[in-house]
C-alpha cells in the first residue's frame, strides 16, 4: 500500500503535467544566478566588520580577539557574568579554540558534553538534566557577513542543543571562515548541506513579534548570542 501511494501521487503529477499551464517553465534548469557583485575573499577585514555590524543590529555581540588565549578569556568573562557553573559544549576538537574548555574548568565551570540515549525514557532524563544550563559553547563552520549569520553543522562532538537549549550561546568563529554571503559559502563548500544531519543558519538571538508586533528576544532559543572571532 505504501508503494502504491508513491505510484498514485507520481501518476497524478505526471497526468497533470501533460499540458499544464506553467508560465516560464523551461525544460532545463536555469543554472546559477549571475547577478552577484564581486565580493572580498573569505576572512577579509571588510567582511569581519560587516559581520559584526549585522550581528549587532540584531542584538547579537561580536568579540574580535587577537589570540586564542584572549578568546578563552572572553568566553570565561561571559560565563562568569551569567554566574554559570556549568556549560554545554562541543568537543574541544571542533571549537577552534584550543585550551578553551580547560580554561573554563580552571575557572570552576563544569563542562558537559551531550550524548542523548536512544531510549525515550533515558533521553527525557538527560534532557531534563541539561535544561537548566545557562551557557552553550560551540564552534562554527562559517560566518555570513551580509546577514550576520553563523553556520553550524552537526556531527560527532557537535551537538545541536548546545546552541539551542541554554539562554546564552557563545560561538567561536575563525576569521578565515567569514564568507560574504550564503551563496558564496555554498559555492565554496559544495556538499556541506548533507555533511551532518543538520545544518543551521543562526541569525542573531531567538526572537518573536507575535504579540502586538512587539519584538521580544529569547523565546525558545538563546536570548544572547556572542560570537568570538579568532585569528
Amino acid at each position, binding site marked *: 500500500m505504501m508503494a502504491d501511494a508513491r505510484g498514485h501521487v507520481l501518476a497524478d503529477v505526471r497526468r497533470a503535467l501533460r499540458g499544464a499551464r506553467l508560465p516560464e*517553465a*523551461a525544460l532545463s534548469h536555469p543554472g546559477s*544566478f549571475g547577478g552577484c557583485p564581486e565580493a572580498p575573499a573569505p576572512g577579509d577585514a571588510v567582511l569581519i566588520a560587516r559581520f559584526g555590524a549585522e550581528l549587532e543590529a540584531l542584538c547579537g555581540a561580536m568579540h574580535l580577539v587577537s589570540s586564542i588565549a584572549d578568546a578563552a578569556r572572553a568566553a570565561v568573562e561571559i560565563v562568569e557574568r551569567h554566574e554559570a557553573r556549568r556549560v554545554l559544549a562541543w568537543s574541544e576538537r571542533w571549537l577552534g579554540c584550543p585550551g578553551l574548555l580547560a580554561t573554563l574548568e580552571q575557572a570552576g565551570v563544569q563542562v558537559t558534553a551531550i550524548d*542523548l540515549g536512544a531510549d525515550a525514557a533515558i533521553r*527525557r532524563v538527560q534532557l531534563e538534566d541539561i535544561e537548566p544550563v545557562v551557557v552553550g559553547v560551540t564552534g562554527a563552520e562559517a560566518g555570513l557577513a551580509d546577514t550576520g549569520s553563523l553556520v553550524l553543522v552537526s556531527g560527532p562532538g557537535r551537538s*545541536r542543543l548546545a546552541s539551542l537549549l541554554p539562554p546564552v550561546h557563545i560561538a567561536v568563529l575563525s576569521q578565515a571562515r567569514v564568507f560574504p554571503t*550564503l551563496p558564496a559559502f555554498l559555492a565554496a563548500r559544495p556538499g*556541506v548541506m548533507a555533511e551532518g544531519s543538520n545544518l543551521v543558519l543562526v541569525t542573531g538571538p531567538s526572537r518573536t513579534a507575535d504579540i502586538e508586533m512587539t519584538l521580544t528576544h529569547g*523565546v525558545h532559543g538563546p536570548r544572547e548570542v556572542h560570537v568570538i572571532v579568532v585569528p
Partner: protein
Amino acid sequence: MSREAADFHARVRIAVRDRHLQAALASATSRLADARLHALESLPSADALRDHARRIRAHTIGALDTYLEEFARRAADHGARVHWARTSADATRLVVEIARAAGARLAVKSKSMVSEEIALNEALEAAGVRVVETDLGEFIVQLAGDRPSHIIVPVVHRTSADVAALFRAKLGARDEDVADIPMMTAFARRTLRREFLRADIGISGANFAVAETGSVTVVTNEGNGRLSTTAPRVHVALVGIERIVPTAEDLGVMLQLLARSATGQKLSVYTNIITGPRRPAGGAEGPSDGGEPDGPDELHIVLVDNGRSRILAGPSAEILYCIRCGACLNGCPVYRTIGGHAYGGVYPGPIGSVFAPARSEAAHPSPLPHASSLCGACREVCPVRIDIPSLLLTLRAQPAMVRSAPRWLRVGMAGYAFVATRPWLYRLAARLARAYTRRRSKDGWLTRLPGPLSAWTAHRDFPALASRSFTEIWAARRPR
C-alpha cells in the same frame, strides 16, 4: 447568493466593524510591507534575483515528478523514511500510524500550513495524542480555540490583554507572569520547555525540500522549529509536494528572498536544514566516530499532494510557484480591510483566494476569487512574480463560477451585452443613464442606484456621468 458567498459576506461584515481588528491590521500590514521594501533594497540586484527565483520555481514545478523522485531517493539514502499521501485522510492516517508506532502520547509541533490544511491536530487528538503548538502565535491560537489570521503573524487580531487573560485562565499564570509582553513570552517559554523535553514526537512542516540532498528546511524566528526537530526521538516533517527546489544553490536563492519578503529580515533567525535522522556511531569518521550526540533517531517525511496535482492540471497552476512568504497579504487592500478570518480557510489573502478554490473539489464555487479589486499589489510584491490578478480572473471565468452568479447579475450582464453590441441602442441608453445620474446626484455623486444596482452603492457612492460622452466631444471637435 450561494451559501458560501453569504457566509463570506457575513464574516466580512463582522471584520469591518471590529475596530480593534482594523487598527491591528492597518499597523501590522503596513509595518511588514515597509520592512519588506527596505529589506529588498539591501539586496544587490533584487529584481534580477526575483526573476531567477521565478525561473527556478517554474522549471521545478514543470519537472515536479522527476524532482520528487530524486528528493525521495536522496532523503532515503540519508536514512529518512519517506511516505506519500494523496489526500488529507491519507496524510493524517500516516502520521497517526507513525505516532502509534512510536508509542507517542505527546507531540510538539512547529508551525505547518499543511498540517492545518489536513486538520492533523484533530486526527492526532482523536487517536489519543496530545498536540502542542509551539510557535508563540500558534500556541495562543490553540489555547484560545481560535484560528490563525495571518500566515506569518497568526495572532495579529489579538491584543496583549487578550493573551494575558488567556494565560491566566488556561495556564494559571500569575499577575507577574503576564505583566508585559516580554514576561508573557518568558512564561510561554517556560511552559513550552516542559513540553519540548517530554514530547515523544516532533512535527514540522517544510519551507523547502532540496532534491539534490534530500534535505528539508524549516525556517523560524523563535527556535521552536529547531527544538521540535531536535529534542523528541521522532521527527515527522509534512511536505507539500510543490515545496521542492532542485539544488542547495537554489535553496540559497529562495532563502535570500523568503525572509525579506515575509518580515523584512535578511534571514529568519533559524534556517534549519535537516538531512536524515541523527547519524549513528561508526559513520564518516571511522571507528572513533561516536555518532551525532543529539537529534531524532527517526525522521519521517510525508509528501502531501492533497489537491496540488489538481491545481497543476488546472488553469491556476502558476500558484504552485508560491513560497508562502505572506507578502501578498500585507500588500492587499482587501486583506488589510477584512483580515484573515473572513477568508474562512487555512490560506488567507490573495494566495488563499487562488489556492483554496483551485485545490477544492467542492461543487459550489468559492466566493474568494471575487474578494479582490485586481489592483495588482499582490503581483507587485510577490518574490516569484505570480500573476495573481490573472489567476483570479481565470477562476472567476470558470463555468461553475459563472453559473453560480446571482440571477440579476447574469440577466443584467446579458442585457448589457445586448445593448453594448448595438451602437444606436448603446448611445440611447448612455444618454438616458447620463440624464438619470445627473438628475439624481448630489455634488456629482449618487448614494443609491436603483433596483439590484443598489447593492453596488451599499458600500460606496457612484459618480454621476459626464454631461457629454467622449464620442460626442470627438464628433464636435473633428474638422469637417
